[in-house]
């Protein structure tokens, strides 16, 4: 018999080895898959794992994809640490995109350097407003925020569809459900010329820094954590429980809304149906992969982005079908989750007698 036994303290050696073990296991198991499919595994792994880092243009795309993941995951992690589970970042992201788009949709001729910052502010407000509903219901009616945030995302998608099929449709767009293309001043400035990486990457790192300072250094954060983790203890100590819920959801919504605004005012340049490829959900994985730690999330968002770009590369360059790409990405996550178990647990061989 082999049993899992909790370690007295988390193993640092395992913490470092876990991602490497996961990567190795994923490569090994998928190697078999790729060979069985008749693909050249060397070309596939080159495209998946190395190519995103081999050229500046490829690497810049990794950075572009890192920005929204990092931003949303930092916002979510604050709540997750206080056990407030905002699963609706996708909807808050969409509302952010909608609020930001209101400016170029209603003022398509407007010019000036104020437009894109105003759009980001609008987007953050939109995302936070979308989180007000679940926060209010949780605090006042004790409605489960997991369900409410998730359902609010479905409503957000319908709202987006309504706007794009109706009032915000591009009058010259042949009835396609998309807004006008945004004017130059409604686009976020590019950070590195020749790439699509824009200023929102800096905002994402700023968010990481603020989250780190907040999590590590403040008494407010301590009150906040207790409020979420142990509501009764918090009440005893005079800390507010509802404060933790409000702050968690509003910060999460704010960050996701900002990311949504940066996406439409960045690489997309218009409001359309497919503004998100599931960033709001992917960020949940990113937050947990990063151990809910602000610095861990910087690393995990970067890795996740590289994995996405590598997957695209494998489709284009190595002729890998999209399903096989998903299998690789999925197996890497599964192996990682299995591996990190051993940071806190260890295997113990017991006598063999059934317990």
């Amino acid at each position, binding site marked *: 018999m082999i049993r899992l036994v909790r370690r007295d303290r988390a193993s640092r050696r395992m913490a470092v080895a876990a991602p490497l073990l996961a990567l190795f296991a994923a490569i090994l198991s998928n190697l078999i898959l790729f060979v069985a499919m008749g693909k050249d595994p*060397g070309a596939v*792994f080159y495209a998946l794992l190395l190519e995103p880092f081999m050229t500046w243009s490829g690497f810049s795309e990794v950075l572009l994809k890192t920005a929204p993941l990092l931003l949303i995951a930092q916002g979510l992690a604050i709540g997750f640490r206080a056990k407030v589970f905002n699963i609706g970042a996708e909807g808050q992201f969409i509302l952010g995109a909608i609020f930001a788009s209101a400016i170029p949709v209603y003022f398509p001729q407007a010019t000036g350097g104020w437009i894109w910052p105003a759009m980001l502010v609008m987007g953050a407000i939109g995302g936070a407003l979308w989180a007000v509903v679940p926060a209010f219901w949780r605090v006042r009616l004790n409605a489960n925020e997991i369900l409410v945030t998730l359902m609010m995302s479905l409503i957000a998608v319908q709202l987006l569809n309504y706007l794009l*099929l*109706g009032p915000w449709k591009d009058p010259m767009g042949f*009835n396609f*459900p998309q807004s006008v293309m945004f004017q130059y001043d409604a686009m976020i400035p590019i950070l590195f010329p020749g790439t699509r990486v824009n200023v929102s990457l800096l905002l994402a790192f700023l968010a990481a820094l603020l989250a780190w300072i907040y999590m590590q250094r403040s008494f407010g954060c301590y009150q906040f954590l207790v409020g979420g983790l142990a509501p009764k203890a918090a009440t005893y100590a005079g800390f507010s429980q509802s404060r933790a819920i409000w702050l968690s959801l509003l910060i999460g919504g704010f960050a996701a809304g900002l990311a949504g605004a940066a996406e439409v005012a960045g690489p997309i340049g218009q409001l359309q149906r497919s503004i998100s490829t599931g960033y709001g959900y992917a960020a949940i994985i990113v937050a947990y992969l990063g151990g809910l730690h602000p610095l861990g999330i910087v690393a995990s968002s970067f890795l996740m982005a590289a994995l996405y*770009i590598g997957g*695209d590369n494998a489709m284009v360059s190595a002729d890998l079908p999209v399903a096989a790409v998903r299998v690789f990405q999925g197996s890497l996550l599964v192996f990682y989750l299995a591996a990190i178990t051993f940071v806190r647990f260890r295997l113990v061989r017991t006598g063999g007698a059934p317990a």
Partner: protein
Amino acid sequence: MIARRTFLQTSAFAAIAAAISARGASAAEPLGIALVLPSPLGDVGWSHTLALGLDPIKAAYGDAVTFTILENIAEGPDADRIMNKAVADGNKVLIAGSFGYQNGAMQIAKRDPSVTVLHASGFMVAPNFSPFAAKYFQGTYLLGMAAAAVSKTGKLGSVSAFAIPELITSVNAFTLGAQAVNPAVEVSVVWVNTWFDPAKEQEAAKALIAQGCDVIFSNAQDTPSVIAACEEAGVHAFNLNSSMKKYAPTKYLGCVATDWSPFFKASVDAHVAGSFVGANAFLGVADKVVAVVDWSSDIPAEVMTRITEAEAKIADGSFNPFTGPITKADDSEGVAAGVALADADIIAMDWHVKGVTTPLPQ
């Protein structure tokens, strides 16, 4: 055990090394053709038809061309990156298989004049950028005639993807064809606002059937969702792009099939010869891009004769389904008596003909 693991590791690294060195040394470059598709590459439907259109190029050029087929690529920033990557990898002909790829594909065309871009269903043109679309309306007119002949209720339905001109015209011509056989027919449309959502499409078909529609036009669905639902409910159905007869063996009315190979082949030939000039390619029966196949045996013989006559006239250009007098759904004049609508007006059509009872989404 350890030996095998080491072997696998070593061979993987050897393969990676080989792949890297292969990238460095490339002598006689074959022409790379990349096809980007919005939905999974299934056995039927839009994406399937586009991919089939490459076959004659394969046959003609052999090893002198390579194909990169990218399926299920969502419209948006990811599609832009994937197209950029395909071009950066050396592909010189890019076929962007969905309207939503337009902006990204146009940026590529402007940046690199040596790349030829063919773009589905769009309206932008550049010297190295051709939008292409099928004159589905030529085929749906004929199937409208058949639908009116087999319908008992006089109510026809259509599950349609997006209210864009290409699909509005196909519904309009379907209605006009039906009215040519039975002037009293009514056509209801459900716009599902998706290219690929089988469950939603099937629900829409069932709703139309529940309202009494007994012929359903599956307008630009990429799966047999609607066709299969109709077979189950016992009503006739037809679709665009590729035949789905095997999903409705008894109730299949026919298929407005598209064959892109003449256009793809001509474009690649022109690219190789250096004579490619971007232009709006609006292609129909006469171009051998559109053809109706798998006609149902349920269509009465006399109507079938009329259909065959109309088909011949459309093919030789002597008949245009959009010939006036045509009244719009709001009772205003659509096309004046004796006037045949020009391609440019058909491409931009944003109104329904009288007889379509569902208002267009505004």
